[in-house]
């Protein structure tokens, strides 16, 4: 489902003397249907950079990232948008939403964008919010005022609203209590069971051991590069 070949990346800082910083070279990776692959490596080794390239958020320098038949490295912006809408989900560490929009709408939005009828989309959103223990009285409020843990759970609910064939998870269990951590791990297991290919970063070792089928050390992709 996700196949990365010979991927490289460097940043050029034009406003700091045009210095070029290579951050990745020769990255290879493959995630099959129903598989969860965890990225490991010390902080700053390039786990997040790799994830962002897969999502099309960072521009790759070379190589290919094939997701469901589309090469993200060479794809047109609108192809990436279509990919993100229907195929590739992303749970980032930070919730970024239009202020004032109610939580329920925030979670339902990925489904609404796919053309799911509003009542159905909202019902699915309500299910997920309930499972993640967001009290119903908060659903009508904007999540921008919520605590860090609550925002993280809203973000997860949003990421799981649509059954994406491929998912990127960036520390999904960070800052969650034991009970909610368990809910999130169950959601990941369910996604795997329906055949989703998952690429994730998990600092939580217990979580990593439970859901990841394989681990890939990204340090191998940055060897020999100036960090």
């Amino acid at each position: 489902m996700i196949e990365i070949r010979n991927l490289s990346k460097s940043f050029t800082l034009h406003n700091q003397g045009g210095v070029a910083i290579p951050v990745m070279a020769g990255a290879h990776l493959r995630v099959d249907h129903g598989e969860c692959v965890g990225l490991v490596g010390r902080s700053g080794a390039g786990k997040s950079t790799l994830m962002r390239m897969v999502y099309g958020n960072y521009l790759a320098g070379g190589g290919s990232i094939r997701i469901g038949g589309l090469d993200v490295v060479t794809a047109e912006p609108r192809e990436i948008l279509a990919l993100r809408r229907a195929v590739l989900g992303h749970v980032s560490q930070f919730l970024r939403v239009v202020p004032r929009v109610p939580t329920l709408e925030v979670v339902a939005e990925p489904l609404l964008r796919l053309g799911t009828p509003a009542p159905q989309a909202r019902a699915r959103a309500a299910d997920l919010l309930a499972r993640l223990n967001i009290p119903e009285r908060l659903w009508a409020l904007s999540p921008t005022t919520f605590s860090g843990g609550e925002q993280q759970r809203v973000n997860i609910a949003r990421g799981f609203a649509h059954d994406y064939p491929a998912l990127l998870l960036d520390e999904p269990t960070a800052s969650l209590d034991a009970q909610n951590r368990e809910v999130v791990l169950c959601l990941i297991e369910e996604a795997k069971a329906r055949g989703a290919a998952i690429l994730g970063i998990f600092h939580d070792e217990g979580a990593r051991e439970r859901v990841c089928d394989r681990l890939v050390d990204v340090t191998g992709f940055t060897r020999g590069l100036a960090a």
Partner: protein
Amino acid sequence: MTLMQNAITAAPLLSVQGLTKRYGARIGCAGVGFDLYPGEVLGIVGESGSGKSTLLSCLAGHQRPDEGRILFDGADVLAFSEAERRRLLRGDWAYVHQNPRDGLRMGVSAGGNVGERLMAVGARNYAAIRESATDWLGRVEIAADRIDDRPSAFSGGMQQRLQIARNLVTGPRLVFMDEPTGGLDVSVQARLLDLLRGLVRDLGLSVVIVTHDLAVVRLLADRLMVMKSGRVVECGLTDQVLDDPQHAYTQLLVSSVLQV
């Protein structure tokens, strides 16, 4: 996957090639080209004087470019007669001005403002016009009992929402917006952004939005074009351009934004 394929096989709604506008020896914009697909929101950013407003006014037919082509739905817009061009401007196209006073008739009631485009395309049933106007006021969150009030009695945010209703009532396919959230309070901006996002999503609108506010394009635009000195220096997915800018000017622009 079908949705993805649909999005990819569709033809562009607006196709712009080599658009150039000069003011004497000075360049307004030069060699601008892009494709805009149905349902897509394109943000154009740049500092004042970068040519983004010139580009928008050339696209919307307020100014005639010196060179280049503008194809709407396959038709060469620059070859249109004045009558055809104006028909486009009150039917398939819409233009939201930064200052609502430029886009509204201040001496005409809210209902009349919304109804004007309907009457311009031939609506002659008062009750039906009024029903459409009421419906649209509701969609932009203006209470139905304000329908007979003049826009001069509205707040800035309400005026802007009224302008949007007035523009969208005839179901245009392409909307041009010039700094639609400029001059509004931050809280009012957020509400307007949310409204615009919902309308774009529900109506499948294609939008070209000019702004200098990067936060606005991050929330609203799918794609971004960065302009400097009349030329496009970078374009791509909005979040990619903002998070991994490639051009020196974009890097400067992004790093100059105050973090909140």
